[in-house]
């Protein structure tokens, strides 16, 4: 991205960053600063997109500089705009890798400034895990593309500005060779777009959205990468996602993961389980569940740290992030299950005629979210066994034949 000659040394950078961080970034213990505002503060001081090129609004430094910056953030328990991880750690680098110069100049500076927040439009209602099986249809007419279909499980589309959308532009090409990626504006009620927030299992409006595209017109300039080369853009995106989750690469925001200590990252707090067991006098019968929760609260962050270190040292490859994702999501589910059992009837029943949502029972209903969102446990296990351990790939019936034919073959099962 940027040559390492003629730039500030990491040591000098570290020293000035430290002073600036101490003087400017709020502590984790202080009131939470709004994300876009915090990002603007970084941007205005040359600390947004530290490893992004200067011409696109970045600092023009290296990942080593970026890591130095966020290590200080972590040491000093400072707030950073971690909600922008997808924008800055995943989508920005993907645009940088794949976009034309015009596209980069158009989209990257406002992204780094915190003015334009991005999210991913990848999964669809009928095919959560099979990203390349998209049936969103993109058709060109002159300088305009028209988008039809729907996307689902997009987090926070209702407050994002742009979505990076994977869709199918050639139905006669084999599955992975007829895809394109395009930037889709989400704010201001653009024509042909409907966004619905999915109702969560509790009955409340949820965090996820479903987007419906009905001949939504998009300028041809919004295409990211070449037409029908969308799968290589998607792979670039997945590469940056793994790095971001692993805490390395351009999305390095190391600090936010450690903020709050071990329990904070795993989300596991054993205290309430112990209290409930004591209150109900069932300590003996549920001791193993409590112990397992303690074990998860210790082992999961240690595992994640180990993998992060391995990725940094290069002893581990990106796919190893799946180990940590699988482990921690299963632990969260396991703790919800334990809470349900340990709290017993008291977790499920309450006085009064109003619906209550803050009990172990309702948490249980949503507990599978952790093992589904962000790639199901099954997909993690596929990745681990095939990519990390090199076991034979699962037989698939959608390779090397026109995608239209794949769809026709589905009826044969």
């Amino acid at each position, binding site marked *: 991205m940027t040559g390492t000659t003629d730039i500030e040394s990491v040591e000098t950078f570290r020293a000035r960053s430290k002073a600036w961080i101490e003087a400017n970034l709020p502590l984790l213990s202080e009131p939470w600063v709004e994300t876009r505002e915090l990002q603007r503060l970084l941007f205005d001081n040359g600390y947004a997109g530290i490893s992004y090129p200067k011409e696109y609004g970045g600092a023009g430094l290296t990942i080593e500089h970026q890591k130095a910056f966020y290590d200080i953030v972590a040491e000093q328990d400072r707030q950073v705009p971690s909600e922008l991880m997808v924008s800055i750690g995943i989508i920005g680098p993907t645009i940088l890798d794949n976009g034309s110069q015009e596209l980069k100049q158009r989209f990257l500076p406002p992204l780094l400034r915190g003015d334009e927040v991005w999210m991913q439009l990848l999964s669809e209602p009928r095919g959560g895990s099979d990203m390349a099986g998209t049936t969103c249809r993109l058709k060109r007419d002159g300088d305009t593309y028209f988008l039809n279909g729907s996307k689902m499980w997009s987090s926070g589309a209702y407050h994002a500005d742009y979505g990076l959308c994977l869709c199918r532009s050639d139905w006669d090409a084999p599955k992975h060779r007829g895809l394109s990626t395009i930037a889709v504006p989400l704010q201001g009620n653009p024509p042909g777009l409907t966004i619905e927030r999915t109702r969560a299992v509790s009955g409340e409006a949820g965090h996820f959205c479903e987007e419906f595209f009905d001949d939504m017109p998009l300028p041809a300039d919004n295409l990211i990468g070449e037409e029908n080369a969308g799968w290589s853009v998607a792979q670039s995106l997945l590469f940056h996602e793994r790095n971001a989750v692993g805490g390395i690469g351009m999305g390095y925001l190391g600090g936010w993961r450690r903020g709050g200590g071990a329990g904070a990252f795993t989300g596991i707090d054993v205290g309430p389980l112990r209290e409930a067991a004591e209150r109900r006098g*069932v300590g003996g019968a549920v001791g193993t569940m409590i112990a397992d929760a303690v074990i998860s609260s210790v082992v999961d962050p240690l595992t994640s740290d180990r993998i992060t270190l391995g990725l940094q040292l290069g002893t581990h490859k990106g796919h190893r992030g799946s180990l940590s994702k699988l482990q921690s999501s299963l632990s969260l589910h396991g703790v919800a299950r334990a809470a349900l059992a340990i709290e017993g009837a008291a977790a499920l029943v309450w*006085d009064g005629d109003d619906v209550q949502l803050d009990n172990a029972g309702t948490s249980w*209903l949503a507990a599978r979210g952790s093992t589904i969102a962000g790639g199901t446990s099954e997909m993690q296990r596929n990745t681990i066994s095939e990519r990390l351990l090199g076991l034979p790939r699962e037989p698939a019936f959608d390779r090397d034949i026109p995608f239209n034919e794949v769809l026709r073959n589905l009826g044969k099962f």
Partner: protein
Amino acid sequence: MRLDLTEDQEFFRATTRKFLESEVPLATVRSLYDTVDGFDRTWWQQAAELGWTSLFVPESLGGGSLSGAPATDAVIVAEEMGRLVSPGPFLAVNVVAAALAWFGSDAQQAQVLAGVLSGESIATWAFAELDGRWDAASVVTTAGLDGDSVVLDGVKAYVEAAGVADWFLVTARTGEGLTQVLVPADAPGVTVTRGRSIDMTRRFGKVALSQVRLPASAIVGKAGTAGPAVERQLHLALALQSAEMVGVAERTLEFTLEYGRERFAFGRPIVSYQALKHRIADMAVTIEGSKAVTDALATAIDTDDPKVALLASVAKAYVGEHCLDIVDDCVQITGGIGVTWEHDVHLYNRRAAVDRAMYGSPEEHKALLATNTEGAA
């Protein structure tokens, strides 16, 4: 779920299923979520006409068993209710009806059973207390004897359909022993606190008893000797609950497989993937086991088998654990849509979670089984 049902029983099952499918389909269950009572009393009287309330009551008292094996008959209904996560206090009403039929005085039977049988009045069992434990040792509500009166003091909790009940069969303590008293909901000193649960239609509540004085004739059976009666009621409750959980698990697996056959990933239906198929095979094993143990428990109740306590605890521990795990893994197989309000699987997950906890959790029943082969439910 017995394989060798009589023709009458098969007909009863078919009628029950048709009634539930037409009167309280899942859309209706969803709409009942927004109601205070969770079920409709007129509908309950229709259910009563089908025989739901009369299974444990002899013909001489206006009831009638289908087969002479009333618990075996009753689990038929419970299983069907599980399949459609149906509303209605079937378990609670039948436990009290059975208790009155088994242990009640002629006067109690005459006074109470007719209304319960017709569905006009609702009777429920008030056993557990604030600590949410369904064992006799945890009962601290007192039934004091005072001449020709009995005086109740204490708080009962987790009482099903408390908000609409006309009668409470209250299990209380008299010295070392247990006493059961039939308490009218409008007796002075009775305060009912309505409540909800995470289940769509099942409501529970608290019943506070403050110096509730009733004639001694309100005592069911003999004061201080209700221990065995309470055990028997608990066994029946567990049999009905296990059957309901079987229905919940089997139906959830059915619609999950339907869904999984139609949902494709990488050019194949998701249920063609062996990792899912093997988990599904394990579910089939535990459903078969759940049916087997539930049947055995119902038969043990009907035949006064001395192994009934063991079977009751085994059934709750086994069915309670596996039913929830099956529903839970079906959510996983369903994927993201399975954790939305729109998909039906959460209706089943709610019922499974509530059934798991009530009348003793698998953990509590396992603790009994760990130390006592004879079990003790």
